[in-house]
């Protein structure tokens, strides 16, 4: 088998699931004839037709709301946000209608909302967002954010089969930059399970999405230069969180660094810190530290973007501080 990019892995998942289940369909802006702003859905309309690959008007609330209505009736809609930043205009219907449907009305609402997320690409404040913190707080939603091509495929297939609404964030920096040979067959990555991306004994980095790769780079560097052994936990699923894996790595290394690309205040690191605190306080030999973006809309100019986003060197600084603690 040949190597497949992160982006191609997503596309494979869409083809396989549309093949498998007639109820799966896609909707979004420019996903059909054009194949999507990043060409993720290229070829889909040619194969499945305009009824199952719907080019919609520019109206994210309608896309998400219509998906919910179809999902109630047994369909399995997959919505694309052209950039995940535009999910904000569907925030109401997603948090109030979709997320609550099962609980308040016993209405199933199996659907996926996916879209290109994240920075490091000079996209400026409205084409670089990481939306997880806005939804972490909503009971009823699930969220996944793969870091590898294999998980990109496996998580999307699982998300489409999930009985609830899954927000599927795909990191646009990774789209064409990483490649791997994918497992064959009906490859599913379980929702709710983190992955140890690197084993280590001295410090744990908990992270996800693009910063998994930054964390791995930093881990290598401090291993080589300082002889410190770093474990990297790739969360993969952000909601519901894999408490077992989080607590497991903390109990192993006793030192924790949480890294996320998203802004700092109100970011997901806070929740992780609280959970560790409650479940493994006794095991902590040092404060839990965070490396995150600075608290600003992501600026566009390269020196500014580089300065605001977390970089490998920042993780190295933080690991050294933790090691020295």
């Amino acid at each position, binding site marked *: 088998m040949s190597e497949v990019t992160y982006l191609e892995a997503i596309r494979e998942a869409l083809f396989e699931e549309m093949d498998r289940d007639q109820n799966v369909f896609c909707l979004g802006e420019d996903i059909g004839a054009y194949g999507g702003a990043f060409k993720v859905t290229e070829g889909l309309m040619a194969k499945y037709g305009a009824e199952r690959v719907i080019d*919609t008007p520019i109206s994210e609330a309608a896309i998400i709301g*219509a*998906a919910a*209505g179809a999902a109630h009736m047994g369909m399995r809609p997959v919505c694309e946000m052209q950039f995940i930043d535009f999910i904000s205009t569907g925030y109401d219907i997603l948090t109030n209608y979709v997320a609550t449907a099962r609980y308040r009305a016993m209405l199933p609402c199996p659907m996926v909302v996916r879209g290109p997320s994240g920075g490091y690409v000079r996209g400026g404040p409205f084409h670089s967002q990481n939306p997880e913190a806005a939804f972490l707080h909503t*009971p009823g939603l699930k969220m996944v954010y793969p870091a590898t091509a294999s998980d990109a495929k496996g998580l999307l297939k699982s998300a489409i089969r999930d009985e609830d609404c899954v927000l599927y964030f795909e990191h646009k920096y990774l789209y064409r930059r990483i490649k791997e040979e994918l497992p064959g067959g009906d490859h599913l990555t379980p929702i709710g399970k983190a992955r140890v991306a690197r084993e280590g004994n001295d410090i744990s980095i908990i992270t996800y999405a693009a910063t998994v790769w930054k964390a791995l780079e930093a881990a290598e560097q401090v291993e080589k230069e300082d002889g410190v052994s770093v474990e990297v936990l790739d969360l993969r699923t952000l909601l519901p969180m894999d408490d077992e894996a989080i607590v497991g790595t903390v109990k192993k290394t006793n030192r924790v660094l949480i890294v996320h690309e998203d802004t700092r205040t109100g970011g997901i690191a806070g929740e992780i810190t609280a959970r560790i605190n409650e479940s493994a306080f006794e095991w902590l030999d040092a404060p839990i530290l965070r490396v995150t973006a600075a608290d600003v809309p992501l600026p566009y100019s390269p020196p500014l973007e580089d300065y605001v986003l977390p970089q490998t060197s920042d993780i190295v600084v933080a690991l050294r501080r933790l090691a020295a603690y």
Partner: protein
Amino acid sequence: MARSTAAASKPTKLTPAGQSGDLSRAQRLELYYYMRLTRSLEERLVNLYRQTKVVGGLFRSLGQEADAVGSAYALDRSKGDVLSPLIRNLGSMLVQGAKPTEIIKQYMAKGDSPTRGRELNIHYGDLVRGFIGQISHLGDMVPVMAGVTLSFKMRKQDRVGLVYVGDGATSTGAFHEGINFAAVQRCPLVVIVENNGYAYSTPLSNQTAARQLVDKAIGYGVVGERADGNDVIATYEVTKRAVDRARGGGGVTLIELMTYRRKGHAEHDNQSYVPAGEIDRWAAENDPIDRYIKRLLDEDFEESELASIDARVTEEIDIATDEAEASPMPDPRDALIGIYADPPALSPLWFREGIKSAVDVHERPSSWGTHDV
């Protein structure tokens, strides 16, 4: 996407009073039954509200029963048509099969109410009977029903959807996005704007500068019709035409039903903002039930037929009330069930383990507690 722009027509004037030609004698009585049931059930709820047995607010549709009942009656339940009601569509839900006992249990927040005490008043649904519960956020049901009816189209089912919005809700972005989406997709959807003159305290003139709400139809490229919402037959007929159009592949229709909200937004609202005499005028001259009774008697119906329906309604409501009053409040721990299909329940938070109801056991109701609302 194949789409004929010919479907878009200029909005018409008020549809003339209905002829009820295609309705049988039994059906015409059934319309009366549902309107009467709506009104009497709400009156019973007012009693329960005054006895503080209703939890939270009470919302009336007094004077709007024809609009709710007549429009829902145009759907075909045997075909699996689906509607999404608003707060003033109790009548529509009854037509679609909702039961008085369910309604009363909802209002009393009972544990065996359709939402098990999770949601308010008539915010509930049932896919089997064909209605989908609204949420409070106005407009959101329009995209949802666009999706419901999109699925009918995709699966080539012979089903139609109907969604209600108030005059006020036409200002929301969700209404706009949803009807536009459905129009482009030619979903088999009927959108009914119930123009009852007010959104809470806001008169139509502060809601829109349009002369009539049906004027919005052309901007979406859908058929627009306007009818007298206090004439149950006219309401039925205009909706039936739209339902037939939708079922025939003709896409979306926007119907403006002219009616009037005679009660406040909810029971607590004293309607101080309504010009003097306006409510009395509507009550005296344009009550939908009075009008329909007159019409039925002018046709070939007997007073005794109507009286026996009234008696049946009262009996049904009495039975329903007894059942609802006797039914239990929810078990607190039910609150943790069903956020996701998997896992099906949350565990209690650590500080709640072993505590059945925190309030019952530990709270001090006399001081700053949670008991008086």
